[in-house]
């Protein structure tokens, strides 16, 4: 476990600074690094492709983005923290007054020292995110500022990663995580790393079912994968969405849309067996990619185990969701839970009797105690009525 913990710490450090987004080189680099843990096959879905009710947008690239004051001092710099630039910001290079700049500056609603996380994937605009402390100490209503967003939006593709692990059965499960958030550690670098580690371990196991581990940009990436694998996705037995698995908070799980589905019971059994107290969130229409997998066209029961689930911790979607917030030991505790859950899922086979008439003669097959009688049941009758 110590070795695994050190490995997690190593990959958190390497992956945290990358500029992940809906598309772009940060996603590819993330998947290339993750492939050191478990080989990921990359798929590229071109810009302009129709995905159900959506369209894959142009690919986003950023070289630099900053705001300077009139003395040339850099006040806010994308290269220092990628959260400073609103995701998918269009290019701009101008000098402007504070009044003109201010609508493009975003601060966190209640954390004064945190940079918030904002994107604008479909409305063409630019923006910077900064802490309230930075805004108040570095900017002046009378100031003149030079603004540079050296970005490019051009036809490219949306990148998705997949690890396919076949089983003896044609039936499959999905394990899905999202790769579109930049320097946010719990949401969802933790999920990316846990999913890769889980795939590596699961590849060494003898499996009854097949497993699709996928790394997708949230929403559009999930839908692009579904659209390009529609028959297989519609035939899935169930799915896991891995998110928010590295924080210090209590365990929780989000139920699938069918409360009585076996995945929900398995998650509860798993967490109880591990002696983990947990919160239960009933299914609702908010959240992550279970929104897509549960939609009427797919109806895949999908569950999530988290520690510090999205929405539920103050640091969510801010620069304080960082490598001080996430720790290897927290991530390991979730890894242990997901691994045990996979073990249960894989044991959930369906059998029929080869001779359905009457009870099977267990004794003839060496499955029944050789001495009959006795004072009570012996256990084997439990399965005689399969």
């Amino acid at each position: 476990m110590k070795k695994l913990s050190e490995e997690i710490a190593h990959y958190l450090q390497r992956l945290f600074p990358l500029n992940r987004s809906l598309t772009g080189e940060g996603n590819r680099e993330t998947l290339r690094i993750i492939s050191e843990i478990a080989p990921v096959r990359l798929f590229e879905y071109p810009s302009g492709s129709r995905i159900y009710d959506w369209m894959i947008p142009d690919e986003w690239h950023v070289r630099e983005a900053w705001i300077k004051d009139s003395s040339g001092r850099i006040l806010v710099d994308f290269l220092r923290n990628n959260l400073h630039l609103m995701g998918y910001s269009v290019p701009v290079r101008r000098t402007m007054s504070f009044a003109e700049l201010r609508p493009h500056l975003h601060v966190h609603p209640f954390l004064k020292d945190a940079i918030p996380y904002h994107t604008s994937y479909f409305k063409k605009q630019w923006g910077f995110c900064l802490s309230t402390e930075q805004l108040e100490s570095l900017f002046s209503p009378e100031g003149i500022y030079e603004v540079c967003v050296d970005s490019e939006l051009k036809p490219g593709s949306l990148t998705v990663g997949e690890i396919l692990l076949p089983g003896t059965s044609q039936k499959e499960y999905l394990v899905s995580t999202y790769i579109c958030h930049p320097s946010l550690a719990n949401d969802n670098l933790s999920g990316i790393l846990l999913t890769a580690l889980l795939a590596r371990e699961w590849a060494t196991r003898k499996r009854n079912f097949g497993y699709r581990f996928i790394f997708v940009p949230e929403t559009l990436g999930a839908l692009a994968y579904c659209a390009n694998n529609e028959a297989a996705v519609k035939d899935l037995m169930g799915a896991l969405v891995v998110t928010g698995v590295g924080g210090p908070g209590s365990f929780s799980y989000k139920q699938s849309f069918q409360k009585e589905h076996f995945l929900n019971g398995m998650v509860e059994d798993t967490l109880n067996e591990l002696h983990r107290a947990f919160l239960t969130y009933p299914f609702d229409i908010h959240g992550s990619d279970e929104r897509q997998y549960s939609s009427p066209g797919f109806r895949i029961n999908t569950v999530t185990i988290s520690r510090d689930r999205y929405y539920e911790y103050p640091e969510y979607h801010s620069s304080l969701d960082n490598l001080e917030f996430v720790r290897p030991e927290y991530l390991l505790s979730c890894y242990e839970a997901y691994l045990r859950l996979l073990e249960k899922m894989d044991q959930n086979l369906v059998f029929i009797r080869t001779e359905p008439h009457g009870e099977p003669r267990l004794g003839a097959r060496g499955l029944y105690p050789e001495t009959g009688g006795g004072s009570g049941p012996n256990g084997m009758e439990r399965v005689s009525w399969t």
Partner: protein
Amino acid sequence: MNLYEMARKLDVPLEEVYRIALKMEGAGVLRRI
């Protein structure tokens, strides 16, 4: 009925039902579908 539902019905761990089911499969009593 899947093994999880059976385990719930019998109030025994899934792992135990799975172990016995594999044994019975090996003996030709059960066949997985």
